[in-house]
């Protein structure tokens, strides 16, 4: 009989590429509408749906209390928090953050940057681009309500994402890759410094794992060429991950899409885990075989079709199959293939977590 571990120990053991007592359960993001919909399964006291950056403090606390309740009821081993950065409305569907990026807001997904404060390399010196200690309320609150027996992941946009946010669009930065390398490097420097300061503060507030978010790939390949990744991002990733490890935290890379062209590079820079291994883009068996003994695999339960449109039985079978493939030998943390967005049926997510318990006990005999 294996010793029963805490959620945090379970996560850390998986990120150390070992077998814990059972497959750890984690979720990178549960969006506001999903919190409300899931919450209804556990309490009658749920708030109206609202975007967290539009909430006042009291409303934010109500949401975070409900999220804590859900995670405790489900018994998740790792939880993820983010910066809460208030944005000022500057138009019907537009809002600007404190760093000067204007976003197009959407009810269906994340805000999309449409205008940034950096038009040329000269603008970088004018930027006041530092993490704000006041933006860690979610991490601080969840550390209090959830305690230290769960692993606290803190999600920080990585340098690629921060760079294109400052430029006001990913297409602008990708054009810079071809037209203005000086600007690309200057942005990489200032955003890497931001990330280092941000993760150090997160550690101070109780984070155990940093999840560097920001997609580097789409369905069929990487957004940039592997050579461009190696030139414009990889050295900064290396610096960031070393710094993260020095601070005593693990680092997980989140990116949608097909990461195969740069997967070895991500391992080489020292990421402890790769999330979320979208089943439409990468085969979990191949990824597990490739990463075994080098980096943990995090994710893979399809949130594009299975969790939104599948049945509870189909979810159960998918979890069983994924655990059978990815869990033996350790180094696997189960989660959805991105996040629990409003399209996911709450009963399917609950079924996913229950199935992870049912099939995830080590040694895996499925």
């Amino acid at each position, binding site marked *: 009989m294996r010793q029963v571990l805490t959620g945090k120990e379970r996560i850390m053991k998986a990120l150390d590429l070992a077998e814990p007592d059972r497959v750890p359960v984690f979720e990178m993001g549960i969006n506001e509408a999903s919190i409300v919909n899931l919450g209804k399964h556990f309490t009658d006291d749920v708030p109206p749906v609202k975007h967290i950056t539009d909430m006042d403090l009291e409303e934010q606390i109500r949401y975070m209390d409900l999220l804590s309740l859900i995670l405790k009821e489900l018994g998740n081993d790792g939880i993820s928090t983010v910066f809460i950065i208030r944005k000022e409305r500057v138009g019907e569907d537009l809002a600007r953050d404190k760093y000067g990026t204007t976003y197009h807001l959407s009810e269906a*997904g994340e805000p999309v940057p449409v205008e940034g404060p950096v038009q040329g390399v000269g603008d970088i010196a004018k930027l006041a681009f530092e993490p704000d200690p006041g933006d860690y309320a979610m991490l601080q609150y969840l550390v209090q309500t959830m305690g230290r027996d769960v692993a606290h992941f803190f999600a920080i946009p990585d340098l690629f994402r921060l760079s294109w946010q400052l430029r006001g669009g990913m297409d602008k930065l*990708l*054009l810079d*890759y*071809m037209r203005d390398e000086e600007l690309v490097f200057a942005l990489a420097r200032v955003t890497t410094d931001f990330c280092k300061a941000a993760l150090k503060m997160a550690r101070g507030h109780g984070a155990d794992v940093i999840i560097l978010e920001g997609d580097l790939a789409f*369905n069929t390949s990487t*957004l*940039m060429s592997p050579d461009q990744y190696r030139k414009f991002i990889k050295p900064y990733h290396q610096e960031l991950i070393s710094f993260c490890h020095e601070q005593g935290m693990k680092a997980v890379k989140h990116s949608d899409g097909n990461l195969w062209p740069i997967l070895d590079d991500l391992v080489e820079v020292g990421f402890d885990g790769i999330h979320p291994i979208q089943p*439409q883009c990468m085969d979990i068996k191949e990824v597990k075989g490739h990463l075994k003994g080098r980096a943990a695999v995090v994710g893979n339960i399809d949130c594009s079709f299975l969790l939104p449109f599948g049945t509870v039985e189909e979810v159960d079978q998918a979890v069983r199959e994924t655990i059978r493939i990815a869990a033996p030998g350790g180094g696997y943390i189960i989660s959805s293939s991105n996040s629990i967005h*409003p399209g996911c049926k709450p009963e399917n997510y609950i079924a996913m977590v229950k199935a992870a318990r049912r099939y995830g006990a080590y040694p895996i005999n499925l």
Partner: protein
Amino acid sequence: MNERMTSLGETLLAGDVEAIKRLTEEALSAGTTPQAILEKGLRPAMESLGERFSRGEAFLPELLVAAETMKASMEVMQPAIVRGGVAPKATMLLGTVEGDIHDIGKNLVKMMFEGAGFKVIDLDINVKAARFLEAYHKERPDLVGLSSLLTTTIGEMEKVIQTIREFDPEAKFIVGGAPVTQAFADRIGANGYAPDAGKAVKVGNRIIGRS
């Protein structure tokens, strides 16, 4: 002529905006028609780039640079196109469906179709089914392209298809975007699905029966 066309294609791929403006002006001055510039110079280059993109040998920065460069050439040709009354190969209505505000994929598809000689009417992002229908009424396009990046919005594609088909049961649709699959495209009654911008033109041509 052939040398000039090759040079236009190479310049497009190199992303040299100033050079392509100059070469386009020179070609027009030498009596080359915009149609010839498009079909013999720009289109082959775009097609080869699209194929390399689909094979994973070219990446978004190269596509974006080519798009910017092609736009510059098209702007130079615009007065001649208007004067000459050059008929497009076909007309396409394009947009990202309601609720979705992503446009990079849609813009790349637009560029590839324009490069292939289509007139593309871009309705932009967050386009309601009613607006697609209104534009369909007005433009009577040969093809409608629907884009979506979010799982939460792909249901809108079916709504657009149903709305337009009530008006024209023969309307043709191509769909694409991160959450879209061939199975989903079949389910909602789309005529075709392209996994990336590079393959979209080939699928679009097949749908409308052009080469």
